[in-house]
């Protein structure tokens, strides 16, 4: 009975916590510029994420080590440090984007510009982490995040052409504007396969004290939960195809994005969009700041847990306090969060091999996983994901220059 409840909660968490500013803006840009054509990128990204998340959970449940613990132990300090530098830069940019997303949502709701909100937002996020417990952050934020389900309602209400939707799930090449098409595809993959999510999930497995008996549950949460999350992303894309593409609107600013649901849900569309973005970005901001703190604490062997009082894990709390305050600075100066998002998605894609390659080794380690090691199928999948990540890493920066 307890497990069923945990399962339900886990599913809600992965659905409610799936969308963030990166996945929403990239999906909207894709829909507004290329119709249903780029649905396959979301599908591919989601499938990769499902496997990676399942493995993160399995590794931690069986070995009681998080990915970061295991990476440091197996690959040594120099490699860990290199990954840490890259992940910190990327995660910091994503955090700026998410805090900015909260600010922008408040801006369209109240009319007060997001730079004015920046300090308030970052203090509020910090306060939630300072006082809140892990389950409050994980479940509370995701429950609110369920507002994002309204994207599905909006998409369905506009009666998409299901044939074209199905056709879009198959990869095709763009007929014109190839550079931009490629860039948006890479950004979508960068937004879907987010390393911070794997670090967060793996740490959550330890925070929630999972063991081997949770392996089936982990599989369902990763598989079903993340798939539903992917459907949310697809719904955003579909809604953008129907609401923005015919009008010729290309999403460059949040003000344009805010109109997404007004044709489908005349009465509530605008407010729902603002709240959906507010909660989605809030959840993501919490997860990212925690992930960065987890990353350092685990990598250097400090004590860490969101459930401890701050004086018991001072270094852990210091890391997230510092990073949240720093992230507010560019926003106060009015740096456009949408631009930061686009840049951070490309950077995520460019650094993707760093967090993913160690996976192949860790998931085959008999000392950590014993009989729960990857089989040939999972190994083939990881190998394919690694290949994809290298392709993304190589093409993302040139594409940013040509098509971004």
């Amino acid at each position: 009975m307890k497990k069923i409840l945990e399962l339900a909660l886990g599913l809600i968490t992965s659905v409610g916590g799936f969308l963030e500013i990166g996945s929403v803006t990239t999906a909207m840009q894709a829909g507004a510029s290329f119709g249903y054509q780029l649905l396959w990128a979301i599908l591919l990204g989601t499938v990769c994420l499902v496997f990676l998340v399942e493995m993160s959970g399995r590794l931690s449940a069986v070995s009681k080590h998080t990915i970061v613990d295991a990476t440091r132990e197996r690959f040594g300090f120099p490699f860990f440090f290199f990954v840490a530098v890259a992940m910190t830069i990327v995660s910091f940019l994503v955090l700026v984007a998410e805090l900015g997303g909260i600010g922008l949502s408040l801006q369209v709701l109240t009319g007060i510009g997001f730079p004015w909100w920046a300090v308030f937002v970052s203090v509020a996020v910090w306060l939630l982490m300072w006082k809140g417990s892990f389950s409050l952050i994980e479940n509370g934020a995701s429950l609110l995040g369920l507002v994002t389900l309204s994207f599905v309602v909006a998409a369905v209400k506009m009666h998409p052409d299901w044939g074209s939707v199905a056709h879009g799930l198959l990869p095709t090449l763009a007929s014109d504007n190839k550079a931009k098409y490629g860039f948006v595809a890479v950004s979508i993959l960068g937004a879907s396969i987010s390393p911070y999510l794997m670090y967060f999930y793996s740490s959550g497995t330890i925070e929630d004290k999972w063991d081997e008996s949770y392996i089936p549950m982990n599989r369902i949460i990763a598989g079903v939960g993340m798939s539903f999350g992917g459907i949310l992303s697809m719904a955003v894309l579909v809604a953008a195809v129907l609401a923005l593409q015919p009008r010729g609107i290309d999403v460059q600013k949040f003000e344009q994005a805010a109109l997404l649901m007004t044709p489908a849900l005349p009465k509530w569309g605008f407010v729902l969009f603002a709240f959906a973005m507010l909660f989605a970005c809030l959840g993501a901001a919490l997860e990212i700041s925690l992930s960065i703190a987890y990353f350092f604490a685990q990598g250097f062997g400090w004590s860490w847990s969101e459930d401890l009082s701050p004086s018991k894990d001072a270094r852990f709390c210091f890391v997230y306090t510092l990073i949240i305050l720093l992230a507010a600075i560019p926003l106060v100066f009015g740096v456009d969060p949408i631009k930061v998002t686009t840049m951070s998605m490309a950077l995520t894609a460019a650094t993707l091999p760093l967090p993913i390659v160690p996976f192949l080794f860790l998931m085959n380690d008999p000392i950590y996983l014993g009989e729960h090691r990857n089989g040939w199928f999972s190994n083939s999948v990881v190998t394919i994901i690694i290949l994809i990540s290298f392709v993304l890493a190589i093409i993302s920066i040139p594409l940013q220059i040509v098509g971004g």
Partner: protein
Amino acid sequence: MMELNAELLMGRKVRDADGKNVGRIEEFDVERTDNACLIKAYLIGTSALVDRLSAWSLIRPIRRSLLGRGMSIYRVPWDQMDLADPEHPRLKIRGSELRHAK
């Protein structure tokens, strides 16, 4: 008596008595006694690295299908290694006298 840092020794190139390159030190085979940790042997070569990463179950099938032969792994007992110059570890024996560990 000389004090060394094992983690810095790791990855150093080793030459044999004739000055020929044998590979890098990747791992240390140790034995725990009651209150000491004795180094039995130095493991040298690519396979030692695989050993260190605990990646045999991943690498073995690939190696079998691609290479069809073993990669070098040398096990140098402690008394055959000369660490007088830690920057340039040397074997006291010839490369041809080395024993493969696996």
